[in-house]
């Protein structure tokens, strides 16, 4: 089963129609969550909205995910090790407010994590390729070690050091509240030497 999702907020006729027409060949069974899309599929199972749980269940049991270039769907599919084809929404076709999905898709394509179809013909070709697409390795369920490290260092800055306490006390008792409020960076620099090093 191939799972198609275009999110819940905006219609995406081009994507749904292309997959529906491709499914006519009957090679693969397809289920689509089409949101407010006007086009109603004739050859595949579909629903307008799925709960987050149901969507997650469908992604975890499908063989591949076809989607708009939304980060939520992409990350979930990669976490579950599914091959992903995304087709970015285009602003000139009024599929989104701007072309950020196009930019996201190009960048993610460069990372080598997924397939991108830039138009309908391209999408059909990618759908054909799916049959020979090997199963993917699941990505980690967590952010990159670099990002987690940066966040941990920031959180650890909160473990009150003597310097941190002193600066806070000084701020309160010396009536330096205004200066403190206007210069939080200075205070953090004292409190978190790690941050100050960077």
């Amino acid at each position, binding site marked *: 089963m191939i799972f198609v999702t275009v*999110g*819940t907020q905006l219609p995406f006729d081009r994507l749904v129609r292309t997959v529906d027409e491709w499914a006519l060949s009957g090679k693969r069974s397809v289920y689509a969550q089409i949101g407010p899309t006007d086009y109603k599929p004739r050859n595949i199972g579909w629903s307008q909205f799925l*709960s*987050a*749980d149901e969507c997650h269940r469908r992604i975890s049991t499908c063989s591949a995910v076809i989607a708009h270039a*939304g*980060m*939520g*769907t992409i*990350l*979930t599919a*990669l976490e579950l090790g599914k091959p992903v084809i995304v087709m970015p929404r285009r602003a000139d076709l009024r599929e989104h407010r701007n072309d*950020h*999905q196009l*930019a*996201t898709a*190009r*960048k993610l394509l460069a*990372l080598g*994590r997924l397939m991108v179809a830039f138009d309908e013909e391209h999408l059909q070709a990618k759908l054909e390729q799916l049959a020979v697409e090997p199963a993917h390795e699941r*990505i980690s*369920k*967590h*952010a*990159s*070690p*670099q*990002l*987690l*490290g*940066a*966040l*941990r260092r*920031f*959180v650890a*800055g*909160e*473990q*009150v050091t003597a310097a941190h*306490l002193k600066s*806070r006390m000084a701020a*309160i008792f010396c009536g330096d*509240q*205004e200066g403190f*409020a206007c210069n*939080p960076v200075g205070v*953090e620099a004292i409190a978190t030497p790690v941050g100050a090093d960077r």
Partner: protein
Amino acid sequence: MSLRFTRRFFDHRRNMTSSHPHRVLAVASGGGHWVQLLRMLPAFEGCQISYVTTLASYAGQVGNARFYAVRDASSWDKLGLLRMAARLFWVVLRERPDLVISTGAAPGYFALRIGKLFGARTIWVDSMANVEKLSLSGRLVERHADLWLTQWAHLASPEGPQFEGAVL
């Protein structure tokens, strides 16, 4: 200033409870913002995390943690934004977080500003979907984020936001 009292109050509490887990308020709109936020949770191990999002159906994903749903609103819906801000004010007042983290969008912006008002330290991690420029809320939150991050190296600059890796 009235803020002086609140800061003093919160600092006092913080000093008294420094050996206890920190309270973290994690805020994200439904969809991609939320999925990205969840991927960063290991960084807050040992903290007591409460969640705010725009979809009530996510409640099941956070176990026994406290969970708040706020009504979503975007920049053209001024009344909706006001209502959202009021609700978040109440949430922050109730949670009294030491730390507020958000990936966006509007609810995160308000939560960071209100959290800051009450002495919390704040983290903004702009969504990975913003490849060409920072999100609107990400730009507006600049002065209120103690850690202000983009997930794309080419968007970082010496004045901020910083790049420290991505959720992927």
